[in-house]
């Protein structure tokens, strides 16, 4: 029977999941070929939320295009903006003040926690537990409040500009973050009590969605999805940017290669993010929050590429400049797209009920895949 997997024969059942389906977290459309309960093929269909962000950026200046990228992976909005700001700074050779760099790292890590928390709630909901969703949103709300106070928005902040930050920190920022750290350390143990140790949860996740190390590399997976298969791919460690080379944290690796491993990665990563924030929050250097830049930014002729680690994996920003005020071409290498491409491989041969447990651990944000 397994020889048939990957081909369609007469009598196969083809079902459509999405584009509007609660388990796909957005407008993702999966066409699933089934033989009985066994999945033979999963074909993702994209394009339902394509906004041509790359093309839009070509008509925006280097200050303006950053805000659009918050709308790609909206759960890592800060980190997307960081990648764009870094690329422009690289091209213009702007020295970013130490203070701005430290604040950027704190903001990025808060974003990562918020993103992983939302994923944790949604993941548990995907496989049938409803309560964790509210627990996750309760803590995420605290981060949103911190963001709202300093950046003025809760989701699409647009706080980074080429050369630094848009505004000074809110006076309450450090106090609020410290309160959050205390609260979060207490709550993360609750997460383990509620979900991680739960026998039903473990049975549904263990051995599901196997993605071997070789496959993870050849599909170009990155972020927690690849680290769950033991691939060293944390950009923060491999190619440190901002002040990541000055803080102590561990790159989390698991060797389980299954959904449970990818789940554990994110839970453990949240603790590492807290560790990074703890080291920095009392040591924000004094100084400017923004470097002096020219009023009109013009990148020199050439090609510039930077990569950062978002909550979902490696985000690359490629800018090709002809020396004008707007980029000639922009390309984003989004983590979600490559991670999604591994879904077909993971799902083949397993049961339909497990598909949601696999897809959940890939942490797909559709606007990121489908810019």
């Amino acid at each position: 029977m397994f020889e048939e997997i990957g081909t369609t024969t007469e009598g196969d059942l083809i079902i459509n999941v999405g584009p509007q389906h609660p388990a796909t977290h957005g407008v993702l459309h999966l066409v699933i070929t089934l033989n009985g309960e066994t999945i033979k093929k999963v074909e993702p269909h994209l394009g339902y939320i394509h906004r041509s962000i790359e093309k839009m950026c070509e008509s925006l200046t280097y200050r303006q295009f950053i805000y659009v990228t918050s709308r790609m992976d909206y759960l890592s909005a800060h980190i997307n903006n960081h990648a764009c700001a870094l690329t422009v700074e690289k091209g213009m050779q702007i020295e970013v003040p130490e203070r701005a760099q430290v604040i950027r790292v704190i903001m990025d890590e808060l974003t990562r926690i918020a993103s992983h928390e939302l994923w944790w709630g949604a993941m548990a909901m995907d496989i049938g537990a409803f309560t964790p969703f509210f627990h996750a949103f309760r803590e995420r709300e605290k981060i949103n409040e911190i963001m709202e106070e300093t950046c003025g928005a809760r989701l699409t902040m647009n706080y980074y500009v080429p050369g630094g930050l848009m505004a000074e920190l809110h006076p309450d920022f450090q106090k609020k973050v410290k309160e959050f750290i205390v609260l979060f350390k207490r709550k993360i143990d609750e997460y383990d009590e509620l979900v991680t140790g739960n026998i039903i949860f473990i049975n549904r996740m263990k051995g599901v969605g196997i993605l071997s190390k070789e496959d993870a590399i050849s599909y170009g997976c990155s972020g927690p999805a690849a680290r769950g298969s033991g691939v060293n791919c944390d950009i923060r460690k491999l190619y440190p940017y901002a002040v990541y080379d000055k803080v102590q944290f561990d790159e989390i690796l698991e060797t389980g290669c299954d959904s449970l491993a990818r789940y554990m990665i994110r839970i453990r990563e949240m603790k590492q993010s807290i560790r990074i924030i703890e080291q920095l929050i009392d040591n924000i250097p004094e100084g400017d929050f923004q470097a002096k830049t020219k009023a009109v930014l013009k990148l020199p002729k050439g090609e510039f590429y930077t990569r950062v680690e978002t909550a979902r994996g490696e985000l690359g920003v490629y800018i090709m400049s002809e020396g004008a005020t707007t980029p000639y071409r922009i390309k984003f290498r989004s983590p979600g797209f490559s991670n999604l491409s591994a879904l077909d491989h993971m799902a083949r041969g397993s049961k339909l009920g497990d598909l949601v447990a696999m897809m959940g651990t890939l942490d797909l944000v559709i606007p990121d895949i489908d810019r």
Partner: protein
Amino acid sequence: MFIVKYIKEVFGGLKSLLVGMRRTGYYFTHHKEIITEQYPDNRDTLVMADRFKGEVILLHDENNEHACTGCTACELACPNATIKIVTKFDITPEGKKKKAIDKFVYHLELCTMCNLCIVACPTDAIKMAQTFEHSVFNRADLTKILNKPDSKIREGIE
């Protein structure tokens, strides 16, 4: 031994469920830790963060004067053509022509609250307001003229 392992697993599983249930029970009996806000019932007490980006406003003082020179820096900074500055020429008492704004047109429906116009303004004439209830029945209501009728530029602002 298979049977011992089996029994252990059953009890281990049961324990994990009870641990989770204890957590649920804790919140069931501790209402103080619930943080849900009852919007819109709490409208009177609701405080928005003072930097919250709700909409762009032009600041007017008590003499109905603003600080906008009509330099269009904000219009150029805006990524999606939300702002349109219509300028006119005033005749000063000395008989000179002076540029001033006729209309500060702001399309709320296009605005992404990116704050770029606010940072671009050299005279700090505009600011973000903390309003958020923007729903209207007619789309045209979202296009606003920000300068008040008969308002003029404050003395001494160039």
